[in-house]
């Protein structure tokens, strides 16, 4: 349980964050999942902004074109460049009887859940995740804060393996 075989090592600098904190990176394919989901939420917004621009702006005499250009620029930036950075901010470590999940940079949260505290475990897969062969692991604890700890971007097999690991711990240490 020292190292995950599925975890690829990225030689680029962003991963230094995870390496420094002793965390494993999530699957690189998670970038695509994030990209697609971001696109699915932002593109309709951008289209709506364009429509407003075309239909409303001429009537009220506003600056024509500004809104659509801004909307598309923001949307494309968010879709193209942000997901790659967001993925490097996710990290996890499974071992020593506990699951560690870290996320975010501006507001970084590093959560540890001991296996003995886990109430039940979900492995979920959304349609986009299925496209890229990924799953997410959800660990439920009885705490009111952090009652669900979600770790996305895991290879489906790894997620299942982690579930088995945690499950075996729950059975052996009855807390």
């Amino acid at each position, binding site marked *: 349980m020292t190292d995950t075989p599925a975890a690829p090592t990225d030689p680029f600098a962003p991963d230094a964050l995870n390496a420094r904190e002793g965390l494993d990176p999530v699957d690189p394919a998670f970038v695509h999942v994030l990209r697609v989901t971001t696109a699915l939420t932002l593109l309709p917004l951008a289209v709506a902004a364009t429509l407003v621009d075309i239909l409303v702006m001429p009537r009220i005499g506003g600056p024509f074109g500004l809104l659509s250009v801004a909307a598309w620029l923001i949307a494309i930036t968010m879709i193209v460049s942000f997901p790659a950075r967001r993925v490097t901010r996710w990290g996890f470590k499974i071992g020593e009887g506990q699951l560690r999940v870290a996320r975010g940079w*501006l507001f*970084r949260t590093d959560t540890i859940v001991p296996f003995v505290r886990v*109430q039940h475990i979900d492995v979920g897969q959304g349609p986009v995740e299925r496209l890229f062969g990924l799953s997410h692991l959800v660990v439920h604890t009885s705490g009111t804060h952090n009652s669900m700890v979600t770790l996305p971007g895991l290879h489906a097999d790894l997620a299942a393996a982690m579930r088995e690991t945690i499950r075996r711990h729950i059975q052996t240490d009855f807390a």
Partner: protein
Amino acid sequence: MSDAAALPATDAAEPHWQRLHPATLALSIVQLGPRTLNFVPALAAIGIAGKWAYVAPALLLFLLVSLVFAWLHWLRFRFAVGVDEIVIESGVLSRQHRTIPFDRIQDVGIEQGLVARALGIAKVGLETGAGSGKENDATLDAIGLDAAEALRATIRAHRSIPVAVAASDAPAPAEDRLLFAMGPRRLLIAGLFNFSLAALAIVGAAMQFFDGLLPFDFNVFNPVDWIDLAERYGLDSWLLAHRWVAGLGAAISLLFIGFASGIATMAFANWNFRLMREPRALRRTRGLTTRTDVAVPVKRVQAAILVTGCLRQRFGWHELRLQSLATDGEKEKDHQIVPFGTLDDIDPVLAEVAIERPAPGGPWSHSHRIIALGGLVGAACAAIGGSLAVFFGQPIGWIAVVAAGLIAAFALIGTRFHQWTDTGDMVAIRSGFWKPRTTLLPHASVQSIDLKTDFILRPLGLATLVFGVPGGSALGAHEIPAIPLGTAKDLRARILGAGART
């Protein structure tokens, strides 16, 4: 990990997958009826648009789509009861695979509606004690009644072994003991400290509302009324020279109402307060008009919270609340166990739940002053807004400016009261200046720990620890804000180490 990776393949072949009862589909048809109501506005819109011919096809299409979805849902929902766990797979588009060990199932609820009873099926709810919310519930909706009862029996049989052991090795105290009681005298003192102008707002609003309806035309809050009263007795000339009397009258009545309402609320809530130690629980009875009787199982107590006030602390009065796993769907999340008592009253109660107050002279560490930042930013916003208002000729802006000063002062003073200490098997967290509170959190109650940093704390080398504790508290999450990163990591390792041992 590498050996675990091979496991799911072997395990997945094993389980005996079951579907929900086919009658569930019939049930979903019944449930379609009420859901069609949501569709009525759309139908009406079509009808109003003059296309009556489309109403029936639209309705049919809707029913058909709903049925297909219900069928797909049924098709994709399966569960397997293993030796010591239950696995549920669900979801049409996004798939979910949930594993619930029997060890973690607290309660199995079997629920039957009218139609379900006619069909001989039942909805099984598995309660795991995972935090509240729909996402945390696991339900089998629905399976045959006999299958549901068999499942419950299986889970109970599995659970009964460890429970029996636990019950036998804990020798329970033989008889009930009175731990704490509140007499009228204590209630009176408590009520005095319970001075509240909240009731004043209500009375004031009522006075405004019933102004014309009252038999007497007198508003105690209105100094003019006091002057009127004085006039009637020919005191007006004297009063004009001594206006302060009117002000004094208003002030005295304010004080009186504040104290009276404080005493009244305290007396109504806590009349004949009794806290008993029963074999397995602390039992609290209180109340004048509505008497409540609450039992808090000792083993379920997760944390203790000592609340006091700026002033009442000087006189040595405190309030004790216990946070426990919420049971029986009670309204209050934490239990007020000692509403008003000295530390000498509280210590024996704490001893009953195996929590000890840290020694007063112990080493307390402070949080970093940076936590005042939020308050200061708020104050700055208020000050800027107020100044702008004054600048544009709205004298009311001064209120915001003064409030900003107060907010800033409170934030700055409050930071000095954020302290914590670790006594080896318990963390104590102190916070608050106006309402100081001390949280006593045994390491064993901590379910998860968040170590949070952000763009402000990180450059300072600080982190905030947030603890996941079962059973909510009305006073928010338990956290130690802004402590050095190294210390935070240390503390986290120590607390989780204790958790893993138990």
